[in-house]
């Protein structure tokens, strides 16, 4: 558990960090370090330069005016402890299930989005809440919907020189019916399957529903058929069962390992979607 030799730099501004990344293809951003450093210690990652963005001012903090804007360097613990996220109780509940206290004290929401671990919790939550990230690079600043951010295994649509500066949750699902449920891996605590659901209603019918699934697919994805099966319906047990049955249909090829096969993960997706919707509906 000893990493290879590497250079360490600690820029004091986002622009300085972008400059280092742009001129150094072998560099990696270090946020909370709870994915990168274990990978380096296992020698699965060996960046030539580690760019620590932990001392850049203004990257941490939560602004809850009109949805929520969460600074990229905001730790999981800060999210759990925040009194500004009452409109999105699922986020708080899901964040409590990330890792353990030491991981939550160091790990950051921006790091989680940029790393795009296939078994991360908050990727599914952000999909369900229709969030976006603000990314800044050589070409300037842009906003990327998380729908378009996660593109492959541990891969995002960010350019090599782009840094996430904030995660933005719109007002769409503020105070909506929502829940995150998870089957945690007994060793790592990561999601074998995690399902995040957010549902708004109008006149007693589902107006809008988003379901984010993590752990099972190559990267967190939405269960769009299940979402469609909810829309326009009354959120009752029957509707939930019908939607949950479709929850694994749009996820592509599923992950499998010695703990859980793709078949079992598909089954868990359906079981947990039913649980999440039932919990969100308060049934």
């Amino acid at each position, binding site marked *: 558990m*000893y990493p290879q030799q590497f250079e360490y730099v600690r820029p004091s501004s986002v622009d300085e960090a972008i400059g280092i990344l742009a001129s150094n293809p072998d560099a990696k951003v270090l946020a909370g370090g709870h994915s990168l450093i274990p990978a380096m210690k296992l*020698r699965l990652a060996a960046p030539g330069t580690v760019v620590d963005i932990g001392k850049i001012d203004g990257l941490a903090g939560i602004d809850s005016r009109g949805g929520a804007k969460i600074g990229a360097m905001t730790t999981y613990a800060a999210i759990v402890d925040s009194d500004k996220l009452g409109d999105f109780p699922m986020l708080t509940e899901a964040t409590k299930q990330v890792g*353990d206290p030491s991981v939550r004290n160091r790990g950051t929401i921006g790091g989680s989005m940029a790393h795009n671990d296939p078994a991360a919790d908050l990727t599914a939550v952000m999909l369900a809440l229709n969030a976006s990230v603000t990314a800044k690079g050589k070409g300037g600043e842009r906003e990327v919907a998380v729908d378009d951010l996660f593109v492959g295994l541990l891969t995002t649509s960010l350019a090599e020189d782009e840094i996430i500066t904030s995660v933005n949750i719109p007002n769409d699902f503020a105070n909506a019916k929502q829940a995150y449920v998870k089957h945690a*891996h*007994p*060793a*790592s605590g990561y999601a074998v399957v995690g399902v995040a659901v957010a549902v708004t209603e109008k006149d007693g019918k589902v107006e809008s529903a988003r379901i984010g699934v993590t752990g099972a697919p190559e990267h967190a994805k939405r269960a769009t058929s299940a979402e469609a099966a909810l829309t326009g319906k009354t959120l009752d047990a029957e509707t939930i069962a019908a939607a949950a049955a479709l929850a694994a249909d749009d996820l592509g090829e599923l992950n499998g390992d010695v703990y859980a*096969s793709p078949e*079992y993960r598909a089954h868990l997706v359906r079981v947990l979607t039913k649980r999440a919707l039932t919990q969100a509906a308060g049934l």
Partner: protein
Amino acid sequence: MVASVDAPEKMVGKAIKRREDPRLITGAGQFIDDLRMPGMLHIGLVRSPLAHAKIKSIDLSPALSMPGVVAAFTGEDFLDLNPLPAAWQAGGVTNHAVTPRVLAVNEVHLAGDPVAVVIAEDQYLARDAAEAVIVEYEELPVVVDAKKAAEAGAPQLHEEAPNNIVLEWSCGKDAEVVDKALADADVTAGLHIINQRLIPTPMEPRGSVARYDPGTGDYTLWITSQAPHVMRLLIAAFVLGIPEQKIRTISPDIGGGFGAKIFCYYDMPLTMAISKKLDGRPIKFFEDRVENYVSTTHGRDHISDVEVGATNDGKITALKVKTWANIGAYFSTIAAGIPTTLYGRMIAGCYKIPNIRVDVTATYTNTAMVDAYRGAGRPEAAYLIERVCDAVAAATGIDPAEVRRQNFIQPEDFPYDTGIGMLPYDSGDYERALDKALDLAGYTDLRAEQKRRIEAGEQKLLGIGLSSYVEVCGVAPSKWIGLGGEGWGAGLWESANIRVQLTGKTVVTTGSLPHGQGHETTFAQLVSDKLGIPYDDIQIKHSDSLGTPFGFGSYGSRSLTVGGTAIYKTTDKVIDKVKKLGAHMLEASEADVEFEHGKVFVKGSPDAAKSIQEIAAAAHVAYDLPEGMEPFLDETTYYDPPNCTFPFGTHVCVVEIDNDSGEVDIVKYLAVDDVGNVINPLIVGGQLHGGIAQGLAQALYEGAYYDDDGQLLTGSLSDYAIPKASQVPWYDLDSTVTPSPVNPMGAKGAGEAGTIASTPAVGNAVVDAVKHLGVNNIQMPMTPERIWTAINEAR
């Protein structure tokens, strides 16, 4: 100065906190990795990425050219060192023992086999340099499964072991006799049991630091060892071929072992040899977790086919077991004893079974070596026989508790010989423990609730698992276990020395040693009561071959029953001398004095007493001793136990299973253990907690897997599921007390009981929850997917 001290309060039986803990939990402990010495160098090992291959060439030059790299060697540089010793070869059969060298030569047999070593100024550089070494391999075919390894056409690991067979061993009656008993049985049942491979995972990995003294030719070796005296003997006599006294071994604080730190490992002689080559520079090896997982020993890994016969009323009449035991790539130090003496001979459990036959085939595979892991053979035996009891219950329709009751050895049967070569069980009252456990658990109500849920078609199924276990502790009488008997290559006695110094402060040195068990507390409690010396005045010294008498080490729950008895008998010797000298000081005849609460007095006149502190001072200054008495209160005992001890009990586990997802929740865990008389209930409780957690982890969470290429798939703590506090239940602990007649304390041992008992209790509970669906077995770890699959297949 000398002060008489009031007799201390009674310490034995008190749940006092461990005196070790303030040191250990405030970071003041001294572990191997805390050792820093001037000029110390670090080892980086070049390990084979392939599980089976010929070594074609090794190019050390890229490493040697790196600044800060001091030296590098291959296996060829250490051909003057013998392969590691095979200290326990199974008795009465041929053992094809192939042990590893310090570095592999010509051929590697597991992924992680060390082939070269780089020595550098720091541990980071050592690893970078090791990665720079270029090794060319020629890949060979791989086998990882114990049973497949013995099949025709399997890849062959060692020329010396045809068909990869380490040994074939059996115990019990002739197969024909047992086959006939099976044929004659009212009912029979079969079970295929995989007792999966586990990784011991002590919190602290292993390591060695060696320092050679070029002036004297002596070595000092600091090791994470549960048996430093034995390591000194093995390395000196068998690996280096030098006198034992040229080596001083020291085990500093050790962060857990669970058996994996009993054995003689490559790094011990390797660091010593390198220190000598480098003119005495201290050499440090400390494995990281990944290295610990690939190359420190694993445990269990049995595949068994079981047939059981019983009468219609649940009496077991015959048991036939065939087991394939995976030994790994090489023969580890005591590997042969685990699936033979400690497994086969314990297969009867708590039961009178007239016809037993156990056949064991142990094989080499391209995997990490397998050796003793907490319980060592007994958990495999207990799991098998307790699953058998439930299978008999299922076959006869009799309640699992009643099946156990039907077959128990009765209190009047002790000492009881099971007829399969184990020493006679010392004492027990198995039914009392079962009854108490059933009563405390509310067994009848649990069964009613289980039935209700099934009838109501509820999603959460209830499962009730029982485990009535017995195990063998306090190993062992030397003549029985030794070369003429079970094949252990030495004795298994223990030793103690007690010195009551001039001031009355007392030093106890013991050949036994802790790696987390609290010896310094328990032994001091024992001595305090016996000698009437305050607990705080007694220090327990251990773990250094220079300052302590020889001991065989801490394993097999033997520290108290064997090492503690050596101390107990030494206190008797001290008391004898104290009485003689006390009588002399009181001008009385020895026959007229008594010793009580640390004081000698003439019978009937306790007021005119001499305290042990006064007597110790008199013995030390030696101004006025009785004719012929030597100065100083200093006594030593070497104690060889006449028998082992046999703790027992019944554990009850209640699980809830979600029949939709297969997820399991332990909702109740109750244990009634009988470990004989208890010195420190807090320590025993802690041992049971840890043991139960480790055992239930086997049932539900832990499993080491290799792919067909011999790559360990569960090579880190993020894949291999050691349970966290949130993953274990509340434990309700209770006890019965049946003192052991084997030792004067009446103690039986508690270090492994929890682990042995809990795996079958949890396993039986899970199967019990789904048996109404037609499920009769699920392999461990009983993960949600395996339970879900079993439910689906039964439906």
